[in-house]
C-alpha cells in the first residue's frame, strides 16, 4: 500500500494535467491554479529543508573541528546574518542586508566568474590546434564566432554574416537535433512516471 498510494497520486495528477491542458474548463482551471499554488508551498518547504541541511552539515564541521572548520563558521555567520538581517532591517536598497549583498557577495561572485577569462584563454591556447581536419574546422569556426565580437573594420560585415550563417544553419541544425532528442526523452520519461513504470522518485527501482 505504501508503494501504491504515491503511484496513484502521480497517475491522477499526471492525467489531470494532460486533460486540463487539452480541455480547458472552469473546474479544471480552478484545480490547476490550486495545484500551482500548492507546488510553490512545497518548494518553500524544500528550501527550509535545504537551510536545515546546510546548518547541520556546517555545525557538525565546527563541533568536530574538521579541517577547514573556520570556513563553516563564516558560512553559518553569513546564513544567520542574512536570515535575521532581512526581516530586521528590510531588503530594500541601502539596508545592511543589501550592503552585504553588494559589497561582499557580489564581488566574490564577480571575481570567481572573471577568473574564467584567464582559464579560457589558457585552455583555448592549448586546445585549439589544427591537428586533424575536424580540429581545423572547429578552430576556424571558433575564430569566426569569436571575431564577430571584435570590430575588424571592412571585414566586420562579411565576418558577421558568416558568423550568423554558422549560428543559423549548421549550429542550429545540431542544436535542434539535440533539443528534439531532449523533448522526446522528457515525454517518454514523463509517461513512464505517470504510468508507474519509472519509480526512481520513490527512492527505488
Amino acid at each position, binding site marked *: 500500500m505504501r508503494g501504491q498510494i504515491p503511484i496513484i497520486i502521480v497517475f491522477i495528477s499526471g492525467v489531470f494535467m494532460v486533460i486540463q*491542458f487539452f480541455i480547458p474548463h472552469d473546474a479544471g*482551471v480552478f484545480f*490547476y*491554479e490550486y495545484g*500551482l*499554488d500548492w*507546488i*510553490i508551498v512545497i*518548494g*518553500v518547504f*524544500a*528550501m527550509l529543508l535545504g537551510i536545515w541541511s546546510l546548518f547541520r552539515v556546517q555545525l557538525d564541521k565546527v563541533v568536530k573541528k574538521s579541517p577547514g572548520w573556520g570556513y563553516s563558521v563564516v558560512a553559518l555567520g553569513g546564513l544567520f546574518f542574512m536570515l535575521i538581517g532581512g526581516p530586521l532591517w528590510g*531588503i*530594500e*536598497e*541601502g539596508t545592511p542586508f*543589501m550592503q552585504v*549583498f*553588494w559589497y561582499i*557577495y*557580489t564581488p566574490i*561572485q*564577480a571575481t*570567481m*566568474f572573471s577568473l574564467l*577569462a*584567464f582559464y*579560457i*584563454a*589558457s585552455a*583555448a*591556447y*592549448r586546445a*585549439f*590546434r*589544427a*591537428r586533424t581536419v575536424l580540429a581545423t574546422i572547429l*578552430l576556424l569556426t*571558433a*575564430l569566426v*564566432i*569569436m*571575431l*564577430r*565580437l*571584435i*570590430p575588424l573594420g571592412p571585414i*566586420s*560585415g562579411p565576418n*558577421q554574416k558568416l558568423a*550568423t550563417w554558422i*549560428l*543559423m544553419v549548421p*549550429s*542550429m541544425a545540431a*542544436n*535542434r537535433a539535440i*533539443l528534439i532528442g531532449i523533448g522526446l526523452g522528457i515525454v517518454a520519461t514523463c509517461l513512464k512516471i505517470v504510468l508507474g513504470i519509472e519509480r526512481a522518485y520513490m527512492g527505488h527501482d
Partner: protein
Amino acid sequence: MDFYERLMNLDRRWVYLIVGIAVIIPVLNPFRVPVYVTPEVKAIYDYVESLEPGDILFLAIDYDPQAMAEVHPMARAIMRQCFAKDIKLIISALSQNGPGMAEQLISEVAREFDKKSGIDYCYLGYKPYFAIVILGMGQNFRIPFPTDYYGVPLDSLPMMRGVRNYDDVKVVIDIAATNAADYWIINGNGRYNIKLALGVTGVMTANYYPYLASGQIFGLMGGLKGASEYEALSKQGDRAIKMMSIQTTAHIVIVLFIVAGNIGYFMSRKKKKQ
C-alpha cells in the same frame, strides 16, 4: 627547446599575465569601438519603441552577480527606454540572487526618471521554481505573487488594477544568465503564447538561435555585444559600449594566442619531418 616549441608550450602564467595586461590597458586608457547592430537586437528595440505610453512590458531579471557585467546593461537600457516613453513595467527576479540585481536597477533608474512603485512599475520579487512561477503568472500574477517585493498586496497597487496575467502585458523580455530562459520559452511562449524576447550571456547565445528562427522568440541580445548594440540603438547609457573595448582587447589576445600556438605546432612539426 627551440623558439617554436616554446611558442607552442608557453607556461600558463605568461598567458594569465598577458591576458591581465590586455584587460587592464583599456580600463586605464578607455577607447571606443564601433558597434555593428544585428537584426535580432534591433527587433527588440523596434518593438519596445512601438509601444504606447501606458502599455505594460514585463521585464524578467533572471541573473546573478557573476553575469552582471554582461547583462545588467541590457536590463538598464530597456528599463530606461521604457520609463522615458512612460511604458509601465512589471519586473520579476526568478534567479536566487536576482532580487538584489533588480532592486539596485529599479532604485537607480526609477529615481532618475522619478517613477513610483505601484504606479509606474510593479516589482514582484522572487519565488522559487521558474516553471511553476511562470505557469502561475500565466493564470494570474497573484498566484505566485499575492504581494509585491515590498509586501504591498498587488490589488492595492493602482497599476495592477485590472491586470491579471500575460494577456494584459504587451511583451515579456527575459534577461537571463540561467536556464530560466528555457522555461520562459517552454512555459511562457509554449503554453501562454506570450510575445517573448531574450537577453542572454555570450556563451548562451548560440543555444537560442533555433528559437529565434522558429519564431518562439522575436529578438535576441547576446552578451556584452548585444548590450552595447541595444545601448547604441536606444541611446540609453553607454556602459556596455565602454566595456566593449576591454572585451575586444581580451578577444584579440586570445585569438593571437591561438594563432601563435598553431604557428609553433606547424613549424616544430615541419622541423621534425626535416
